[in-house]
């Protein structure tokens, strides 16, 4: 993400706002998202105008207490605008790297400038890649190193997926940790990635500090197999857009670029075959093949679900142990960590620091 278009302000100038309130809707290359207030106070200035295209890091508005004089606000805006330099295009944060795991090339994105604390590993779900954590990884990396991994058959990793089972993918996570010298980590997975993280935890309890499950598979039989089949079948823009829209509570969030990126991935040789293999293993006969006995996980668990999840029902959180923390977010869909990035990041940060 290098720039964004200011779509619409959601609050008026002069309004009292609290930390986490949605302030302004911004359209990036991939998805529309609301920018949340990083602090509480009064929205004193809406500096960005609707329709502006701004680089990452530019000034959207000014929040301050009501007793700060207008002249100070104006001086701040002027000072910011006269000194602000957008980041160079090519310096847009860390780039994905690859590592050999069990003879397969695995792509991952490391944000490891902070190495205090136990690292966090992010595992995308079926058909997804590291980009699904685009709104989470940087924020979460303020406290610890965070790695997002493309599973085989997905993103920029090797296409071949073995038997396509959860055990196979859990083995890749294990191999990745060994290659990177990570002895113990917090694991967080989205959808099938949550099931992979859970299977890994059952096999390697000593290596897991905690489990964070975003709209996780693995805790009930139901799965929207129509979505799975539509995703595999879609080879044209219109079909793919319709499939992807099921992932969000607000279908308008699916942009042309998101659809184009997923199609470019799907059109690579071997991808559809791998997706088929995984679906036949993990989601055979229209249901989830493996329901994990959550009482055997034995690590602190956080589950985040959107209550409008059309892929894996949020009611599956009832199958988690009583001491699991469950956060259900209203009016959000399966991609809850994208659609409600701010609240998700807050609850995850708080959970990880508590169980550290």
């Amino acid at each position, binding site marked *: 993400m290098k720039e964004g278009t200011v779509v619409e302000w959601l609050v008026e100038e002069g309004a009292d706002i609290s930390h986490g309130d949605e302030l302004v809707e911004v359209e990036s290359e991939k998805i529309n998202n609301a920018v949340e207030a990083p602090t509480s106070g009064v929205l004193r200035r809406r500096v960005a105008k609707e329709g502006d295209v701004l680089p990452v890091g530019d000034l959207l508005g000014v929040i301050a207490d009501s007793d700060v004089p207008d002249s100070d606000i104006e001086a701040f805006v002027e000072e910011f605008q006269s000194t602000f330099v957008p980041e160079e295009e*090519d310096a847009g944060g860390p*780039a994905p790297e690859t590592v050999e795991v069990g003879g397969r090339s695995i792509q991952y994105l490391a944000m490891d400038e902070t190495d205090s604390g136990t690292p966090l590993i992010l595992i995308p779900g079926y058909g997804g890649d590291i980009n699904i954590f685009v709104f989470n990884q940087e924020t979460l990396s303020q406290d610890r190193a965070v790695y997002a991994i493309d599973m085989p058959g997905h993103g920029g990793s090797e296409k071949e997926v073995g038997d396509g089972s959860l055990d196979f993918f859990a083995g890749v996570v294990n191999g990745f940790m060994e290659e990177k010298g990570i002895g113990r980590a917090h694991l967080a997975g989205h959808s099938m990635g949550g099931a992979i993280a859970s299977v890994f935890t059952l096999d390697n309890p000593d290596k897991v500090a905690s489990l964070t499950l975003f709209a996780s598979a693995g805790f009930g039989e139901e799965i929207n197999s129509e979505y799975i089949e539509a995703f595999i079948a879609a080879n*044209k*823009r219109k079909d793919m857009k319709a499939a992807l829209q099921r992932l969000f509570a607000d279908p308008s969030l699916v942009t*042309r670029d998101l659809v184009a990126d997923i199609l*470019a991935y799907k*059109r*690579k*040789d*071997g991808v559809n075959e791998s997706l088929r293999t995984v679906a036949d293993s993990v989601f055979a006969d229209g249901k989830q093949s493996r329901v994990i006995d959550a009482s055997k996980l034995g690590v602190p668990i956080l589950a985040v679900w959107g209550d409008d999840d059309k892929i894996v029902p949020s009611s599956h959180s009832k199958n988690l142990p009583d001491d699991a923390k469950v956060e259900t977010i209203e009016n959000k869909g399966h991609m809850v960590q994208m659609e409600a990035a701010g609240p998700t990041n807050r609850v995850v940060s708080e959970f990880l620091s508590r169980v550290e």
Partner: protein
Amino acid sequence: MARTISYMAAINEAMAQEMERDPTVIVFGEDNVGGTGSPGEIDAWGGVMGVTKGLHGKFPNQIMDTPISESAFIGAAAGAACSGLRPVAELMFVDFMGVCFDQIFNQAAKFKYMFGGKAKTPMVIRTMYGAGIRAASQHSQTLYPIFTHIPGLKVVVPSNPYDAKGLMISAIRDDDPVIFLENKVQYAEEGEVPEESYTVPFAEADIVREGDDVTLVAIGRMVNMAKEAAESLSGDGIECEIIDPRTLSPLDDETIFESVENTGRLVVVDESNPRCSIASDIVAMVSQNCFSDLKSAPQMVTAPHVPPPFSGVLEDLYVPDAERVAAAVKATTGAGATA
């Protein structure tokens, strides 16, 4: 960052990956290996512009040079395709296609139909089109409308390196004869292209840019002109939706119609001569299917109805440019002079 390579390298890589994957994929044409019979010149040339350069070293048994007899080797390609091979024949300039129309129009395009669907003809004819390199009238024409007119042929015109590779792989894997048109001015153009093999499907137009005011359909190299015009028009508050059909046969008319239903205005940019062109074809289809959506008369931006000139000054005027595209867009909005 994804890897960046040229339009030419993208086409070369597509052929190499398909030759590697499938030994029945063969490549031939004039000087495709090198200067035949010239000692030390093996693999030196690689076709007129060097698109097949390097293939002979990797696949010596799957590439050969042909005599300068287009009717013979295009006929050979049709025959090879009917008997189990997947030939990719290069016919230097599309302007030379006339001598083998019988092989293309009456043989390759008709086999499947005449033999009741029992024959397949998986051949690709690669060829260059377009003006811009001072190569005069017999080396500069944009003749894709002629092939689009013939049922049984597929016609592909990639506008960028990513599409060039994916469409070439689709063309080679397709079981029907495909005319694959490469713009000679674009060979050096760079773009992001994955290293892996991938396909871009036929009959799916690319929406290059979204906009609500005017639908701009542009073909091949003209997509660049449309993009340039759209950027400048955006400054005037006119937002163009640019549609690149990518394949002219089959044509994704649905995407064009849906866009016009939204914008109500159409401009087609086509480097061909205007009569019986893709521009006139699309304008006709839109007029027939979206008449009640249209807010103004559709516009065509094409070459004039004359041969491509040799004079550089005249050739530069011959090819549509961003300025002419912008003028046509303004004409549809009533905001300026007609094109």
